[in-house]
Structure formats: structure tokens, C-alpha cells
């Protein structure tokens, strides 16, 4: 496929998407780099709700990094249960979230997280909202989706791996991936196995992504990641067929 073709396809997809949405203006799009090709918008639409099913504890780091990209320095709201592990801002700074940017709301009950997220999504002063919810019922997801569209704020719902497939615009599954070791055998850059599980008009795909220089990139050097990447592509291909 030539470059012109892919650009045309992207433009056509955007038109089709706009037609499907009725009159509402298309949301601003955030380019994620490699995963853009699988998304019908050519990037991640902001002002929408995105679900991140956490295969393990590392998904929170991925969500935080994504939140930092979405917010671009604006304040963000981080909603969590009082008894969950404490987000540690000194460490989050490495993922692009500055301490003065993150307003944290802790709640006693799960429903209050959804309420706080909805309040945050309706507040245009925010750059993004992250909620650590265990489950995301379709009705709750639709409420949050509506709030995100109203306020123009992107929402990330980090759910358990077995959470209901709710009404979020995209659904990702994120788990840890072994990092590319440093030349001296130390820990490499943070890495995740990221799969796009559900996205209307998009292709279910999977990648191994690495956090490097403030963005998600394919692991470097590619020779190391090659086998696992092709293996994932095979798996996705089987599922698509």
C-alpha cells in the first residue's frame, strides 16, 4: 500500500466516522505512534471513554503514561478506592505526570468513583480523568461516555481483566512485557503487552510497546521483539478469521 493510499483511507475513515456520529464535531485525536494504524480515527479520540482491562498490576503504569500524553500538562483527576495502593507521584513523574498536575480523589465506595469520574469528565478545566474501577457496567460506561463528550475530557477506566465489556469507545488489555535489558543487564524501559480488543471500525491488534522519551514505541532493537510481535500478529489474525 502506498503512502497516498493510506492517507486517503484515513481521510475516508474519518468521514465515515463523522457520518456515523451525526452532527457532533469529531473529537480531537491524540497520536499514539504505532497503534494509530489500527484505530479508525488515526489516533486515540479524546473526549471519549477508554477502558483499560488490567491483566496485571503494570497496567496502571501504562494508564498513567497515557493519561500524561492526553493531558499535556493540564490538571488530571485520579479517582481510586481508599484501600487501594497509593499512586506515588515521585515515580509517576518518569511517565510524564508532574506532581502538581494530579488531583487525587479517594472514595469509600465503588459507586463514588464513578460519580467522581463523571464530575471530572464534565469539567473542561481538566486534561483527563483516570478511574480505578473494578467493573464497568454498560449503563455506567454510557453515563461516563456521555459526560466525556459533554465536557470534552478524555476518560480512562482501569478495570479488572474480567470486567464487563462496557460501552467504552475502545477497550484495551494491558499486561507486563519483559523489557529489553540494558547493555549491562539491568532493567530496560517499561514495556507492556498491549492489545486493542474492541474498537468500532478498528482492527483488533496487539503490540509490545515500550515507554521511551515520552512516547510509546516498539521495543528497540526490533530484532529482539520481532518473534513475539509476529506471534501476536498471528494470534490476532486467527481471531479475525
Amino acid at each position, binding site marked *: 500500500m502506498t503512502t497516498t493510499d493510506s492517507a486517503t483511507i484515513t481521510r475516508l475513515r474519518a468521514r465515515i466516522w463523522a457520518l456515523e456520529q451525526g452532527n457532533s464535531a469529531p473529537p480531537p485525536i491524540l497520536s499514539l505512534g504505532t497503534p494509530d494504524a489500527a484505530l479508525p480515527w488515526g489516533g486515540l479520540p479524546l473526549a471519549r471513554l477508554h477502558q483499560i482491562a488490567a491483566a496485571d498490576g503494570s497496567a496502571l503504569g501504562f494508564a498513567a503514561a497515557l493519561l500524561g500524553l492526553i493531558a499535556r500538562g493540564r490538571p488530571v483527576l485520579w479517582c481510586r478506592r481508599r484501600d487501594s*495502593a497509593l499512586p*506515588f507521584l515521585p515515580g*509517576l513523574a518518569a511517565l510524564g505526570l508532574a506532581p502538581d498536575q494530579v*488531583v487525587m480523589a479517594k472514595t469509600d465506595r465503588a459507586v463514588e468513583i464513578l460519580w467522581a469520574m463523571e464530575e471530572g469528565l464534565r*469539567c473542561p478545566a481538566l486534561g483527563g480523568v483516570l478511574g480505578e474501577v473494578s467493573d464497568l457496567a454498560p449503563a455506567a460506561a454510557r453515563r461516563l461516555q456521555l459526560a466525556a463528550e459533554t465536557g470534552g475530557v478524555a476518560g480512562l477506566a482501569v478495570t479488572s481483566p474480567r470486567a464487563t465489556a462496557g460501552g467504552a469507545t475502545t477497550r484495551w488489555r494491558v499486561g507486563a512485557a*519483559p523489557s529489553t535489558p540494558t547493555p549491562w543487564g539491568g532493567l530496560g524501559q517499561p*514495556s507492556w503487552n498491549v492489545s486493542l480488543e474492541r474498537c468500532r471500525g478498528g482492527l483488533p491488534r496487539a503490540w509490545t510497546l515500550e515507554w521511551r522519551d515520552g512516547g510509546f514505541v516498539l521495543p528497540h532493537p526490533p530484532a529482539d521483539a520481532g518473534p513475539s510481535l509476529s506471534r501476536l500478529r498471528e494470534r490476532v489474525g486467527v481471531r479475525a478469521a
Partner: protein
Amino acid sequence: METPRRIVSLWLPSFVADRLTRRGASHADWHAQPLVTVMQQQGALVLAAANAAARHQGLRPGQSLADARALCPEIKTVAADPTGEADTAARLARWCTRWSPWAAVESLRSDGGAGLWVDASGCAHLFGGEQALLDDMIARLAAAGFTARAAIADSPGAAWAAARHGIASGSTAIVPEGGARQWLSALPAAALRLPEAMVATLDRLGLRRIGDLTILPRAPLAARFGPHLPLRLDQLLGASAEPIDADRPALPYHARLAFAEPIGRTEDVAGGIDRLIQALCKMLERDRRGARRLILTLYRVDGSLAEILVGTSAPVRNPTHLARLFAEKLDGLDAGFGIEAIVLAVPVAEPLAAQQMDLPVEVRGGPSGSDGLALLVDRLAQRLGPSAVVRQEPRGSHIPERSIAPASPIGRLAAPPPGNAADPRARPVSLMRRPEPVQTFAPPDMAPEAPPAAFRWHGVTHRVARAEGPERISAEWWHAPTSPPPQAFRDYWRIEDAEGMRWWLFRDGSAGRWFLHGVMA
């Protein structure tokens, strides 16, 4: 022209008994029966207070219970409760702030009566004149279950005398402005709030009425009876100031709304609050201040109060903002038998520069600017609690759990302390609430300082693929009262397991045990 001082003295002659038999109280059904409270006095039970029915039977406070039972066998007795009585009187005084912001408990007397002050200077016209004000007080206190007498005069002393001794018929008395000397001259000397012994002495001397005393020169009176008597005379005539010590200061920003009919629907209350907020915001704007804390007091028909407290993260005088904060709190409102008045006050206000309030919010850069964030934070804090909405501020400590502190969600954070910046890549993204012990599996040739080959946490074994460390963090000896032992340190390791999960583990220096302290990105 200065508004003349007008003081209302309320006398509740059977306060203690009324308190027990008022609606909703524990002995409310005993209203018509002889009822006394008793207390221990020198080993004997004596009457502390008696209600009207008991007095009618000839019972008086101070009698022994045995005598009382002889006079009236069917008497009901309740243990006296001085603390509860003082509490009720204080609440009643606060309820009286519905008429004037300045109200206080005057005294709780041993005969079971109570007195209240209400400074009604410049207030009476709001209630249709002084007579209407006094009638309103009597009627509302009666509805709340208290028999009362009320008198208004230029000075607390004159009002007190009129309420206790000057009411011939009915239950209200108005001492006209400047007419205290003439109006009160026929009252007995006891109306001067004097000790009983002094009243008896005056009586022996033929000085039975206030009028007998006011015409005498003060100097000989002071020489004979001490300074107390001339002071009381001056206080009665308003020549000597007598401050009323109200239990809460009048708030500079407060607005009040009374309803013609009691209201109970939340929507109606919210409508009333909106009007008060508008009025308050005008006052605040005039002084270029914004509210940090607001108190809404709801006066229920039955004489009880409900208070709603609201705090803000930054000075606010945007009516919409404030109204939304109250809307959050009105959900579980108990209106009781109805709400007859509401008062909104701002106890804490801070300077806030002038703003153009009439422009639409969007034009001022409202919700998209810092204003919008302040509103969001206030709404969240209102429902979740003020300590639940915070940011993290760096603090000068190397111990991870002490290196951050909760900080205000709005405004500028403190600068990070110098020399404390750890590499953020060496810190976890989430920290366990407390370090959790893990079981470790050492390689056969393991040195004590080496990382484990595997560790077990929550029933899952993680094989260590790579490890970086140790990063030694020692106890902060400069904070400890005694020097900590040299082995009080933690050796932190960044560990990646076979699946790629990264953990932050440490080995405790003193015990040599391993703990999981966080999850790395």
C-alpha cells in the same frame, strides 16, 4: 443617629419542668401531672425544680422529697440534670438568634427557671414592632413547649426587672424608650437583681420599691450597702453599661430569610438558599472578598435547628458555584415539621479581587480556567470529605512513605526540597499502604546482600529475571530522639520477574526480612 439600645429579657419560669414535658422529650406525657426534679443535697433528696401542677400542690424547690411526698403522694420525680439543662438553654439561646444575631443565656436559676437575653436593637421593626416581636417570641416558645414572659427595655437591668416583676397581666411588657425610671419605680427592690439578704435589709429600712432607692443620693447608699447596689441601679437606668456576652459573635456577612408558611420541600429550601446566596455575594463583592466557609442554619417549627456547613478550596463569590455546593448537601435534609426561617452566614471570608460577575462564565474563561477546577474540587470535597481530594507534595525525607504529603488540590505546590530528588525511574508508580512481607527463595550461593532468586506474594511465586540495586535508605537519625541502631536501613531492589512485571522490594536491615513496597512502571 445611633440606634437606641433595646434589650429583650425572656424569663422561662418553669424551664426545667418544661424541658422534660415538651414535645418529643422523654416525659412528654407527664405534662399535666405534678413533676419535680430531685438532687442530692447533704445526703438528702431535695426538690430542684417543680412544674406548675406541682407548685399548685404547694411544692417548692428546696423542699425535701419526703415532705413533698407527704403533701402530694402521686408526684413524679426525675433526677436533675444540670448539664443537660445548661445545654438546652444554650441551644435555646442560639435558636433565639432567629430574631437577632445577639442572644445569650442570662442565667439558670436554682428554682428551675431560666433567663435569656436577646439584643433587639434595631430589629423590632422587622417583626412588625416591639409588641409583635414579643408576642412572636412568646408564641414560638409556647409552640416549642416553654412557658415564657418577655419584656423589652433600654437596658438589660430594666428588661430583667420588667420580665420578672413588672408583668401584671399577660406575658409581655414594653418599657418605653427613656421611661425606665418612671415605669419601674413601683417595682419591688428584688427586681434589682440583689442578693436576698440585701433585699431583706432594704425591706427592714422601708426601702421596698425601686422608686424609693432611685431618689436617694448614691454615695450614702454605696457606703451602707457596698458598690453592688448603686451599680445595679445604674444598670437598671442605663447609666452604666452592661454588655451581653453572646456565645457567638455576630457574623459580618449573613443574610436571613423568613417564610410566611413553613416549608418542607427540598426544592423550596434550595430556592430560598439561592436568594440568600445572591444577597451574600453582593455583600462580598462590595468588600472584594470571597467565602471560604459558609454556615446555613435552618430553623424548624418545633424549635430545633439544622446546620449545613460548606467549605471551599479558594475564596468564592460565584452564586452558581455556591448554590451547587449546597445542592449536594440538601439531599438528606430533614425538614421535620417544616422550616420557617433560614440564615446563611460566612464566618470565614478572604480577599478576592474584583471580577465582572455579569459576563457569562465561559467568557471569563470560567470552567476551562482555574475557576472550573476549583468548583470541581469543591464539589468532590463536599461529598467525599475535604481530606479525600488532595495532591501530593514532595517533602524533605528519603523514606518513601514520608517523602510525600497531602497538599491542597488548588494553587501552587511547595518547591521540592533541595537535594532530595531521587531518579523518578527508580521509584514505583504505586506504593503499598504499608510494606508487605514476602517469602523469598535464595539461590544456593546467595550472599546476604544479593537479590532473591524468586519471591512469593499473595500465593503467587514470581521468578526474578533481572534485578537492580541495592539502593540503601537509612533511618533518619536526625529525627529520632535516640540514635537509631546502625542496621536500621532498607536495601531497595528494582526487580523484574519472568513475566515482565516490575516490583520494588526491600530487605530490612535489622531483621533481614524482605518486603514488597511498590509496583514499578
